[in-house]
């Protein structure tokens, strides 16, 4: 008999009564061992979709299955197969990190010996072993995130749902997380990552779905999506001073200008002379350029092309 797919969602719609936002008619399918990225700006519906898939809330309509098990009718069976890290992880601050993780492992039905073995390994892996007996209220934000990852992984889930997993992690921990996700994927675990960190999604995910205003606007492998953008460039100018960038937007071929910290990111067509025109526009606006880079298109450019909006809020 054919093994059912790891995760299958059909026509998921959920609208929050308070704001009218949510997700509309979302369908997706994730295979065993596949790493699937949900990409979209804040408010695009990534976390809402994960809330539904994690069985935290029921959708207004639509269905989903985890390994063939109905996520609406057999919630507890589905929960047992899921590893979950929510966007804002919380813990019992007066308990130690170890006690928190052990508590969750046991609630997932892991026996005492297995829980201790799995947790020891994960605390070592994520460099938390030295802090395992400290109260969680003394942990930094990044340590709390690592603890949430440990809690998501300790029971050996079949499907992993991670909401902004690397946000707040230091560089070493981000690498450790990526290595762990690749290992899990190689062992057959399906992983869904909601993120707008495009570099991470690009390097980790086998397939990516873009969400915009609660709808799925495009889906494909990162290579397919990026190769669809032949003729697009991204110019990143680091400025000494913030400028009004209207004159850059009016340069022929410029699609979008987004300030990111000290950088001005210009999404534009790939035509001869455009770099000089953009630099001229910045200089005319009074910008003092300290660094300049012309980058190949990324998933962010794909999103800009599809929606006319950027993944990150403007600073």
């Amino acid at each position: 008999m054919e093994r059912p797919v790891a995760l299958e969602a059909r026509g998921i719609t959920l609208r929050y009564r308070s704001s009218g936002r949510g997700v509309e008619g979302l369908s997706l399918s994730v295979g065993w061992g596949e790493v699937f990225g949900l990409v979209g700006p804040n408010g695009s519906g990534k976390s809402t979709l994960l809330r539904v898939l994690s069985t935290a809330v029921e959708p207004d309509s639509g269905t989903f299955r985890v390994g063939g098990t109905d996520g609406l009718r057999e919630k507890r069976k589905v929960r047992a197969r899921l590893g979950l890290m929510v966007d804002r992880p919380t813990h019992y601050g007066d308990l130690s990190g170890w006690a928190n993780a052990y508590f969750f492992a046991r609630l997932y039905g892991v026996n005492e010996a297995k829980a201790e073995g799995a947790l020891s390994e994960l605390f070592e892996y994520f460099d938390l072993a030295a802090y395992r007996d400290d109260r969680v209220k003394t942990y930094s934000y990044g340590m709390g995130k690592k603890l949430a990852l440990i809690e998501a992984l300790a029971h050996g889930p079949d499907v992993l749902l991670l909401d902004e997993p690397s946000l707040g992690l230091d560089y070493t921990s981000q690498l450790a997380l990526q290595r762990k996700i690749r290992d899990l994927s190689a062992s057959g675990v399906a992983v869904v990552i909601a993120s707008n960190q495009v570099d991470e999604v690009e390097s980790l995910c086998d397939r990516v779905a873009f969400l915009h205003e609660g709808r799925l606007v495009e889906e494909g492998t990162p290579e397919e999506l990026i190769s669809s953008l032949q003729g697009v460039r991204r110019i990143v100018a680091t400025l000494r001073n913030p400028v009004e960038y209207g004159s850059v937007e009016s340069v022929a071929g410029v699609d979008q200008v987004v300030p990111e910290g000290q950088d001005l990111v210009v999404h534009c067509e790939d035509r001869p002379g455009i770099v000089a025109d953009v630099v001229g526009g910045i200089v005319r606006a009074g910008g003092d350029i300290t660094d300049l880079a012309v980058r190949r298109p990324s998933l962010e450019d794909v999103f800009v092309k599809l929606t006319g909006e950027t993944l990150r809020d403007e600073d």
Partner: protein
Amino acid sequence: MRINPPDAYWKKDVALFFGRRFALLIKMIYPMAIIVPVAASGIPAEYAAAVIGIVAVMAGTFGAGESLTIDLNDGILVRVALTPTSPRRIVFEVLAVNAVLDFVQLLPALVIVYVLHPVSMMWVLAATFAVFATLVTANAIGIFIANFTSSPADVLLYATAILFPLIYISGFFRNRHPEGILAFLRNFVPFAYMNDALKAVFGLAVKAVPVEIFVYPAVICSVLVFAVCMTAPRLLSPRL
């Protein structure tokens, strides 16, 4: 049996209860500070019984309701509810462990009351059981309120609105000799049985016999616990 690290919801609550040492000291001292002077004084027995009753009712209601709304606001309870553990079991454990921990807080003060006012063992057991039934009822009310608000301050407000009529019906201070509908309603409030038992401990003659104090509150509490556990899926879902 190992409590920490916890492997069940109730053990987590016990570990937290005994882990916060200063808070634990305060929690153990305040019932004594209120109840013991009252028991040692010469105030009328019905008022002494009422004061102990009020302490039990308040400790139970605010304890579970407040801690539950804090955990709900924090998001940690929703995370716990996303494990395969049954939501009804989680709520049952919240209720049971809070009632037992409240009881642990009150027990030393109750023992001193029994020492100061010696009474038959049957009444001692009946009064102790009735106090526990009151704590279960009060915790059930607190959890019920947490279904409708995520603010600990609102819990205090709603609890007051629910508890005042129940305290009145139970005859702690007013309505000591109810008739008609009030007398009928009094039969369904576990606080009333505790009030009767404590009055007996303080030497007053009461209509109720000890066996009623065991049976009726037990039945009422079972119904309340069942009803509150049925609210679990709503209670433990994210507040959106």
